[in-house]
């Protein structure tokens, strides 16, 4: 089966029903997506498929063949972090860090469809992601902050 992950094409021999999460983690060693519940309830396994956040633990492999899969490992531009990654650092928006990758990927999808989300919009869109350590308010702050940074850099790009 042909997969495109972080812009790179890979061929995988695997059961087409197998959840994407385990292919990423066990076959491709992309362990940023985490197992948390196996039923799409916690968001720790979130990756993007064609720019949309999906729960990879309940996404069968065959449904993503030929589509664009993005994981946390492909988010930074070399050493330069994505604004959301940087904002999570700046806001100290984590404790154990286990939910962080899924949280960031969900936020990437949100900012893609809504570049300047309200607090309510952020909370609604990320409600499927659990941070058991309880850093929710910091995460909201980080998403706001990243949205601001991305807006400025988008403007700069326009003017350039």
């Amino acid at each position, binding site marked *: 089966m042909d997969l495109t992950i972080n812009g790179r094409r890979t061929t995988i021999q695997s059961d087409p029903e197998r959840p994407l999460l385990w292919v990423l983690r066990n076959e491709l060693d992309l362990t940023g997506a985490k197992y948390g519940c196996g039923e799409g309830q916690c968001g720790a396994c979130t990756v993007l498929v064609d720019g949309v956040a999906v729960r990879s633990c309940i996404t069968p492999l065959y449904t993503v063949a030929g589509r664009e899969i993005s994981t946390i490992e492909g988010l930074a531009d070399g050493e330069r972090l994505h604004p959301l990654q940087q904002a999570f650092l700046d806001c*100290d928006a*984590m404790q154990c860090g286990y*939910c962080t990758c899924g949280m960031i990927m969900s936020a990437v999808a949100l900012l893609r469809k809504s570049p300047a989300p309200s607090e309510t919009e952020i909370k609604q869109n990320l409600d499927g992601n659990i941070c058991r350590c309880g850093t929710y308010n910091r995460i909201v702050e980080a998403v706001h902050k990243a949205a601001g940074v991305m807006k400025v850099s988008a403007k700069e790009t326009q003017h350039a």
Partner: protein
Amino acid sequence: MLKLTRRSFLESLGGGLLVLFTSSKEAAGQESGTHRRSHEDLPPEVSAWLHIALDNRITAFTGKVEVGQNIRTSLTQAVADELRCSPAVVTLVMGDTDLVPWDMGTFGSRSTPTMAPVMRKMAATAREALLSQASLEWNVEREHLRMEGAFVLNGAANHRASYGELAAKIDWVKVVGNADVVTAPIHWQVAGTDLPKINAREMVTGKHRFVSDHKLPGMLYGRVLRAPSFRAKLVSVDTRAASKMPGLTVVHEGDFVGVAATDERLAEKALASLEAKWEESQPKSSDSAQGLVFGNSNDDTIVKSAYQVAYIAHVPLEPRAAVAQWNGGKLTVFAGTQVPFGVRSELAGAFGLAESDVRVLMPDTGSGYGGKHSGECAIEAARLAKVAGKPVKLIWTREEEFTWAYFRPAGRIYVTSGTGANGKINSWNFVNWSSGPAGIKTPYEVDETRRAEQFLEGDSPLRVGSYRGLASTANHFARESHIDEIAAKIGVDPLTFRLNNLKNDRLRAVLEAAANRFQWAKQTPTANRGFGLACGFDKGGHIACCVEVSLGPSRQLKVERVVAAWDCGAIVNPNHLRNQVEGALVMGLGGALFEEIEHANGRISNPRLSQYRVPRFSDIPKIDVILIDRRDVPSAGAGETPIVAIAPAIANAIFSATKLRLYSMPLLPALAKA
């Protein structure tokens, strides 16, 4: 006697004199499980805790582990502080039983009050040794020397030597930690500041390897057959179908049946193919408190109430996980645990090994909250790996984590109080049945002869264990609800009533700080808006919470706003402390409002995240945390006690709006029934 892994690790750090474990007790082989170790057994030599390499890299060793509480960062601050250097040159090795001194475990809010002083003592002693060496070498008085950028300098004579150069000339074996040279909190330079989380960049890039992310060459994926209910005995199991699957190992030893396969999909299929017969037995049910001392009547205003709390689960987002590998008779296990040395003992016991033949490594893991003290998953992975002859990774499913770990105990609490016409509590009788004694002592002033607190052990149908704050949450829920009941009955404002009965200055200070910020005096409850407060202290931490709730037309409850004030002595890292308090409040909110393990006939009925509700974004109030920095008081831990006051504050807020007194946690089901 010296651990080879530690020797080779120290060699890999390079340079300097290589100093190995030299603890006399360690060397005397007192490693059997029968020897009950304590703090006094910790090696006194600096070299067991600290290594300074020729290139100036400083490595510190501790058995404490990082589960999100940011102890890696705060202990690094302690070491850097004492060595007068940048935290960037300090690396902590944590929770690797071959490399670090023995440690009891990471629990009880003990790391900051007990481990930080040890690290400080060792680093401060090393600092003094470096200065003495320089003084000797250059023949100058100590007071002319200064330390800068991991160098010792003698400005007058233009002498300059790196820590590494000096360290290499010191006979560290003879250098023993001296607590007298530790820096007082008022002189802290690195501690007391917002050092960012040390490996946060690895977290946001997905590079950090949690336990469940580890992969070894040739590794198999394990699954374990679970009983249908607690206490069930395996009668028989048919493994024939599984045994025919290529790439699969089936292990059947007594009641343990597990599989290890080349991929997780095959392991799952093999598990499903097992046909097992179980003999189930009904759990003993003794869910009642017989023979309680309950009664304390006198002429005062008597209030008599009974409260209860439910079983709840920790739900660490990373379930228990382990990667086990055998090498000859030696066993190495990466395990998600708060107690690596305890898990090492469990593994040694399970396989009849010397503890020195078992190595447990604990990479920073996906949280614990008191839920990862035991080593079942590590033992299971090791069993599978032993038979398979290959490394095995076992990650408990969420359902297994919910079912086969342990729970915060449920319990009932009976309180009778008598309050005089002057608004002083004159008698206090408090009995906790089954949930635990933590935080049971009332901070309110009551004559010793008219006050009793008692914990009666219950017989729990479910496996119970530690949980963030232990029973302090239950006891504070009962006590602080009860205090509000008294205040309401005698018609005194809840804040005033508390202050009238409290002498503890630090507790009064947090209560007043929270109430002022919240503008308690200006809040007037209505039928759909309530205000409540609560306070308490435990394990050296003092917390007060003020809460505002709103109620919809069908009593839909929302916690709108929380103001909390917290004092745990000298603050090591203000931002991380604030984060920790916020997190405890959020976790406390879950237990307060809706978290509850449901069970019947030895089965958990809600062992999934779709069935067991935990706090999510939509549940989170505005949270304002006030930190009180007491540089004159040693730092206490902060991982637990900030959780204890939010539940009673919410219950009291609900009462202020509805006049409904709720006696059981979680509150939402109680509110629906009220």
